[in-house]
């Protein structure tokens, strides 16, 4: 999918029962001493052939993206909390930024299977930053936005959120995954509109299961959440967003 985005599919050898929003810690079995740590990756699909969406940001994701067929990996999954199910009678609006589409596409597929068609606002810097957009269209009413106008509406997803909420009949719930600044803005808009909002956190992590304490996220109530065990999916109002 262009030079920066890749889907990596594993043969798990067994059925992996996982839900939208959960993640895996992924490390190449042959990496040796570097890269040292496994990488937290949101699951795109569960089952016997679980998959992840990769955006190349460094050495670990580069190795994942360029894995050869048959290359062995160590996966620890499923980890973390899923998106909470959309409350009865609420319409789901999914707001994705770039690679943040992975847990939301997984969620849209689950919703579709349950007979619910979600609204999706999907933004990226350019048309190249909207991976899996065809798959997204199949399972949601999708609107695309790009900052350079190369696809869909020019601008950021947050520009369309308020109107999307207002156009939807009845109560809505917003789910968002993308860059921190985008999610903070989505959370702010939802708070102003008094609409429930859930975010999926992304931070560096060493273990993925609450031991390293490397993934703190500031809490409204003081102290920190840990993205791995308290999240990654969590109510937006619980987080003290940094300016």
């Amino acid at each position: 999918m262009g030079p920066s985005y890749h889907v990596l599919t594993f043969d798990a050898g067994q059925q992996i029962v996982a839900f939208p929003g959960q993640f895996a810690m992924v490390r190449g079995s042959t990496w040796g001493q570097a890269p040292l740590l496994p990488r937290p990756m949101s699951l795109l699909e569960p089952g016997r052939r679980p998959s992840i969406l990769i955006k190349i940001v460094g050495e670990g994701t580069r190795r994942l993206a360029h894995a050869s067929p048959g290359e062995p990996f160590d996966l620890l999954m499923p980890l973390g909390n899923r998106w909470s199910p959309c409350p009865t009678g609420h319409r789901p609006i999914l707001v994705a930024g770039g690679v943040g589409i992975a847990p939301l596409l997984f969620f849209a597929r689950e919703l579709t299977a349950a007979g619910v068609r979600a609204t999706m606002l999907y933004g990226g810097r350019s048309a190249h930053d909207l991976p899996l957009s065809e798959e997204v269209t199949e399972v949601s009413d999708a609107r695309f936005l790009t900052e350079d106008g190369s696809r869909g509406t020019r601008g950021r997803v947050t520009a369309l959120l308020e109107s999307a909420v207002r156009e939807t009949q009845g109560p809505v719930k917003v789910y968002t995954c993308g860059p921190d600044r985008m999610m903070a803005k989505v959370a702010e808009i939802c708070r102003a509109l008094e609409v429930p909002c859930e975010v999926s956190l992304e931070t560096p992590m060493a273990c993925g299961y609450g031991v390293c304490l490397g993934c703190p996220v500031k809490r409204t109530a003081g102290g920190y959440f840990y993205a791995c065990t308290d999240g990654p999916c969590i109510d937006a109002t619980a987080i003290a967003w940094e300016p």
Partner: protein
Amino acid sequence: MAFDQSVTIGTLTLKNPVLTASGTFGYALEYDDFYDVATLGGICTKGLSLTPLVGNAPNRICETAAGMLNAIGLANVGVEAFCRDKLPKLRARGVTVIANIFGTTIEEFVAIAERIEKDEGVHALELNVSCPNVKKGGLLFGCDANLAAGVTDAVRRVTKLPVWVKMSPEAGDPIGVARACQEAGADAITAINTIRGASIDIEAQRPRIHHRTGGLSGPAIKPLALRIVWDLANALQIPVIGIGGIATAEDAIEFLLAGASAVQVGTANFADPEAGAKMMRGIAAYCERHGVTVRDLIGRVKRNAP
């Protein structure tokens, strides 16, 4: 037949030389899904303070070449919650528990040791006088022979448990600091804690760690740790517990040969949650292959050329 894997640290006998390092194994129960933690030589708890600590602001960790930096800031549940919520479960499971404790003053170290003394289930105390990521205490104690001995002596007076002192690689004279702790009644020296390092994001032009510096751990520090352990084992009468970049059975055996009486596996737990279990199996296989016990290996490679 199996070759004896047990080792002795002062008055404490461990069923094998593999311990898990403080701060990399939580309170051990988190690893229940991976293997039976009671099979380990022991587990060192997350550093316990007198009152709970929330830790440093993010980012707390980043990866570096064959290693990682961390500045967690000793986030922990506090000694009271540990004794109330974690210790009974560990005791019931038959886990050998080393309580790693941390104070900003000698009085705090003493108070934590006194609290632990009230309950059953802790087998030794490990004094963290070498944390690089807190503003008060920490490294200050571990780099000064008088202060390190002062903490050791004060804790020694209030506990019947074996007292281990966890050394910093940044002490100008590690042997001098360790000897002072030995004189003050330490039962063992754990070496080494992390060494301060830094990493800068050149695009954002800021440190990758909010605390600006962090403790470097992982394979990157193994040769440094091995040299210090070798020096200490050669100079001290009390046992040395090796730690620093130990990820595999082969790494552990190097430390044993250099004179460590036991080893701790730390950062490797993150790369592979079963690292400790694999290490135990690998050491046993090595002993089988060489027809030796673990005790036979300890200090077999001499520091000073004959």
